[in-house]
């Protein structure tokens, strides 16, 4: 691992008129590190994620990303073309609803291959071979490659979305409630898969979730948000086992025990 972070975020704020989206958020993300952002609905987690992934421009603050050449680039000063290029090569974005991240009317193979074609791959055979490889890595049968995602179950769609994002070998993946809306057994398998992929590929990830169990399984570090502010951050195990902020204590004690 290098001694420089992958992403440096400093005093990031987003206001929707007088309303606060997120306020004064700062952190560093290191290569290969998974950071969970937890908090209740409306706490600003998704706003933060959208700002970081440049889908939304913040009101103030900066974020710089270490490009593959080792140079830090200020995200909000890049041209739109550069940002979009980053989005489809070095980054991934896994939406809560797979329909938002997939092209529902083209086949699974084309969904996985789209990023390759976007960066200039023009060999059908190679694109298809890569698609087959990635489908097997996310446990989708090869014979489903020409099916449209509409014919897939929720869990399969989510796995397909993950394959589609990882095919260009990104270094940073943003995930917005990746297991939301899935039943528990499917959720468990997806988490298992994600954990494997993140470790194998050395991905850095920012995972937004309201599910503390997901945060515990996936992340090394976590940030707890409330009303747009970070109320506590630290190693995941420390925050969950020894919560210090009153709100975190409330959150941890609200987990339903079976």
């Amino acid at each position, binding site marked *: 691992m290098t001694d420089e972070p992958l992403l440096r975020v400093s005093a990031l704020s987003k206001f929707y008129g007088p309303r606060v989206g997120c306020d004064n958020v700062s952190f560093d993300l290191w290569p290969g590190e998974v950071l969970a952002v937890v908090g209740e609905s409306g706490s600003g987690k998704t706003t933060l994620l959208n700002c970081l992934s440049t889908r939304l421009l913040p009101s103030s603050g900066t974020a710089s990303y270490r490009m593959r050449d080792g140079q830090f680039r200020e995200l909000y000063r890049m041209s*739109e073309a550069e940002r979009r290029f980053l989005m489809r090569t070095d980054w991934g974005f896994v939406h809560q609803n797979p329909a938002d991240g997939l092209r529902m009317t*083209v086949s699974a*193979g084309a969904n996985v291959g*789209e990023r390759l074609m*976007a960066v200039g791959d023009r*060999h*059908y055979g190679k694109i298809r071979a890569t698609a087959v490889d990635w489908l097997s890595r996310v446990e989708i049968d090869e014979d489903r490659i*020409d099916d449209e995602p509409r014919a897939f179950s929720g869990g399969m769609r989510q796995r397909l979305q993950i394959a589609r994002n990882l095919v260009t070998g990104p270094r940073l993946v943003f995930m917005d409630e990746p297991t939301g809306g899935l039943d528990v057994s499917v959720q468990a398998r997806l988490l298992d898969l994600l954990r494997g992929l993140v470790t194998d590929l050395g991905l850095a990830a920012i995972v937004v979730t309201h599910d503390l169990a997901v945060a515990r399984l996936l992340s090394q570090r976590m940030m707890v948000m409330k009303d747009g502010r970070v109320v506590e951050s630290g190693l995941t195990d420390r925050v969950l086992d020894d919560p210090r902020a009153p709100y975190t204590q409330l959150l941890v004690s609200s987990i339903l025990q079976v």
Partner: protein
Amino acid sequence: MTAQPTDIATYNFAYLDEQTKRMIRRAILKGIAIPGYQVPFASREMPMPYGWGTGGVQVTASIIGPDDVLKVIDQGADDTTNAVSIRAFFKKVANVAVTTETAKATIIQTRHRIPEYPLTAGQVLVYQVPIPEPLRFLEPRETETRKMHALEEYGLMHVKLYEDIARHGRIATTYAYPVKVEGRYVMDPSPTPKFDNPKMHRSPALQLFGAGREKRIYAVPPFTEVVSLDFEDHPFEVQTFDQPCALCAAENVYLDEVILDDHGGHMFVCSDTDHCEKRREEGHRGHLAPETHVAPGNMEPAQ
């Protein structure tokens, strides 16, 4: 320009008023300056329904002058409803000479074919375009497709070709086959058969595209590079026909299937009627051509 003496004094020359023609000419000039770029323009209501060539007619009306010779084709034919009506329209409102001969025309308005007879410098080919946006069925948001054009993000176009190969084993798109113009903009060549795509490449004629309903004009200036998109292992190829034209025996031309009777009789003939007639006048005979030159309606059905 002052109104020409025509028998219908109430219409301006070539139907459109001069301000509108200026506006359309500006859009055309911009289109020529940026080959393949879709220029928005204030499309007018025309005395014909959308889908019948309102865009092409407006472009033609803006560039036509009293000395021009106009040819109009519809799927290659000079004698079908759309072609006959538009030709009659300009004869009436612009009082221009009309022809069916490709070589004699200065302006050729076309619906979905490029004439077989090679075009020359000085000629203008005006296409009627139903949907100018090649990315439309892949990305429905116009805001997004304009951004994709601006940023030259054309990976999605190949997704469509990928889907073709995955489903049919080859690129099954046969018309409206996407092209890249001068190495920059991806363009829909209107629903011409892909057979005609190579003719667009470095054509000496000026090619103008008008989409009336969608309010877009785009252009390919003479001698511009027009490359059909493909994959390295699935290169672009045009349709081939295993038999020549049944009337004029022409090979390497685009053929239409014509049903002759209700017992399965059919023949393949040139879609370009002018080209076919010329060849027959020169003495070429296909296997179904009558001995003497008679109208197609009097022909014997194939067995």
